[in-house]
């Protein structure tokens, strides 16, 4: 006992660690209380419309109703396994992955190209920036209706201009091998101008002195791009990639307007599959299960991206 006494002494003089932490927490809370109060309205709405709905989806995913006469019954994870076994769901996932990669890479590449070309501000670049940004302002549904006429087989604008160059006129939206790529074109056309904004902002943040120093050291434009600009733009890249990936899952207006997931499910994306299950098949259980799976995948992806972002920036 007496041997242990001196060792226990320093602990006894200060507050016990638990209490200490609590006190710190209370002090922290006091300091950040106004911030929490300011966040409260958003939190209320999020709880009502987002977390509440998510909770409901979680419950709905556990139940199944077969016919209107049959009672709703608890089926546990049956809905989830039914969704995973559904060829049109796995097809939609594959389509969506293809669509995500096929739209993210070209639109980000184009956006970077635009931003680099138009980084200096003058009358010409301002006009060009506005022109490239214009598709962002057009609602997706309107853009899709427009492209419906561009893609019209035989008589559409696309066939009118490039049809004579091809041996066979493609049925852009009616051929399952082409349709998904056709709708990718709209997405790329629409998003490139949007992502350009982020890259333009990112380019502003590249320190002028570093660029000047590199210039004096004899680094050419390519060297500067490779070793200074691109590394400096890394956070922008990560951010835009996250946005592009989320867009690939959440934008389905064009699928609604142009193809309804067809022909033969070739343009069916995950969100459209969920919609089909819920409102066409009237199968809330399967729709909820598919929603949960999608949500889980997106949350994992977002968490991963934020961690990567945090690591790159050094963290606290």
């Amino acid at each position: 006992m007496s041997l242990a006494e001196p060792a226990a002494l320093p602990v006894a003089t200060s507050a016990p660690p638990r209490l200490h932490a609590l006190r710190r927490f209370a002090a922290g809370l006091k300091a950040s209380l106004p911030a929490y109060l300011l966040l409260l309205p958003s939190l209320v709405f999020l709880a009502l419309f987002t977390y509440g709905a998510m909770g409901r989806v979680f419950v709905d995913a556990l139940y199944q109703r077969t016919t209107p006469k049959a009672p709703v019954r608890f089926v546990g994870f049956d809905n989830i396994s039914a969704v995973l076994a559904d060829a049109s769901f796995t097809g939609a996932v594959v389509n969506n992955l293809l669509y995500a990669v096929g739209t993210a890479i070209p639109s980000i590449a184009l956006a970077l190209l635009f931003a680099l070309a138009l980084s200096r501000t003058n009358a010409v670049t301002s006009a060009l920036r506005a022109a490239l940004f214009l598709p962002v302002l057009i609602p997706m549904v309107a853009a899709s209706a427009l492209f419906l006429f561009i893609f019209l087989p035989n008589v559409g604008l696309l066939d009118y201009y490039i049809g004579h160059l091809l041996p066979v006129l493609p049925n852009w939206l009616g051929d399952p091998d082409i349709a998904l790529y056709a709708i990718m074109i709209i997405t790329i056309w629409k998003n490139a101008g949007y992502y350009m904004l982020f890259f333009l902002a990112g380019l502003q943040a590249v320190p002028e002195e570093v660029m000047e120093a590199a210039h004096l050291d004899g680094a050419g434009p390519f060297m500067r791009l490779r070793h200074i600009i691109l590394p400096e733009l890394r956070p922008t890249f990560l951010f835009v990639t996250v946005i592009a990936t989320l867009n690939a899952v959440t934008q389905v207006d064009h699928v609604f307007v142009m193809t309804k997931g067809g022909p033969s499910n070739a343009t069916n994306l995950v969100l459209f599959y969920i919609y089909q299950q819920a409102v066409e098949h009237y199968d809330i259980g399967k729709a909820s299960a598919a929603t949960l799976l999608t949500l889980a995948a997106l949350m994992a992806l977002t968490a991963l991206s934020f961690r990567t972002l945090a690591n790159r920036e050094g963290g606290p």
Partner: protein
Amino acid sequence: MLFSRRLMLGLAMAGALAFPALAEGPTEIDLFFPVPVDGKLARDMGTLIKEFNETHSDIKATAVYTGSYDDTLIKTRAAIKAGKPPAAVIMSANFLLDMQIENELTNLDSLIAADGVTKEQFLGQFFPALQGNAVINRSVYGVPFHNSTPLLYINADQAKEAGLDPNKPPQTWAELTDWAKKLTKREGDKVTRWGIAIPCAYDYCGWMMESLTMSNGGRYYNEEFGGEVYYDTPSMLGALTWWNDLVAKHKVHAPGATPGPAVSTSFISGNAAMMMLSTGSLTYVRDNAKFAYKVAFIPRNVRNAVPIGGASLIIPAGLEADKQKAAWRLIKWMTSPEKSAWWSRATGYFAPNMAAYKTPDMIDFLNKNPDAKTAVEQLDVAKPWFATYKTVPVRKTLEDEVMLVLNGKKQPKEALAAAQKAADELLKPYNAETSLKLP
């Protein structure tokens, strides 16, 4: 005297104060309406509802545009689920069975009886071919509003130029194939004008398959029971094989799935010499074709037969009594001979009310536009539109496979077997619940 004058004044004051409370505002009702074909139907609907409101001061109806037929079903279901169903909906006639199974429809029998007429008298106003999609288990659930049949449209100028007589349109599949071959124009391997275009997009594709299957002596589904479809049958195989031959063998029909608007645009622009399309597009063709055109019956292989298309007016379940009554008055007004005839002239759909064709305006119109008679004449061979449990997904199982065939990805036989399997899977729970249930 003074007392009584004051009393009078008081009574008048009280009356004036009570008046706003006594006079109820008009019953406000919504009408959901789709625009499934080409043309300016939405504007015409505005005109129609404006006239109704002007002549019915106690009702204020609002027309709400709800997209395609499929979208209208979805939006109606969403409104019912939300507890705010619209008072009336122009609903694709083949969704009525599915909605009745889901308990989403108001049975109209009692509203008909309250008017002092029998069901037979009420339905007697409409063409007999339409009753199959309006009556379910001997109760009335829908009132035919604008209906259609598929038609064969022919570019008469191009037919003449190819040495064909547009006044003697092809009557059989063999003749149609022959016409299509003669009307197709090629430059080397490239087709510059297609002989025929048949739409295949979700919704239209299933209807065209039903039409071709019927012309081939078959049927699409069990007209008496919503749990059976007949995809994997010789009659449907023959129909799909013929359609596929137009694409793959004769190369007179563009490959791939083509939506309705693309078909009508091709026809209007002279890029397709013939097309099979709904009579609902007739006014659009009449207004836009810069050439002489003809409409004819859908050619037969075995028999002349077409499915009914178009829409009926329904009252969703779960409405308050006053709204239900107001909706019923709106429905009766819209399906009256005069309004029905006006709508038919505006759109190209035929008027389901037989008396519409006896109105002077309609007689006059038909004399000027004999092409509008074809769909009505074709009614003699018309049969109900496919209607099953879960109509849309069951129909899609077939459409997805037909699209694969038209794209050269699958042979008709294996495609139909796959469609049948998928449809049976969707229908299984309903069959287990009804036809397979042991007493």
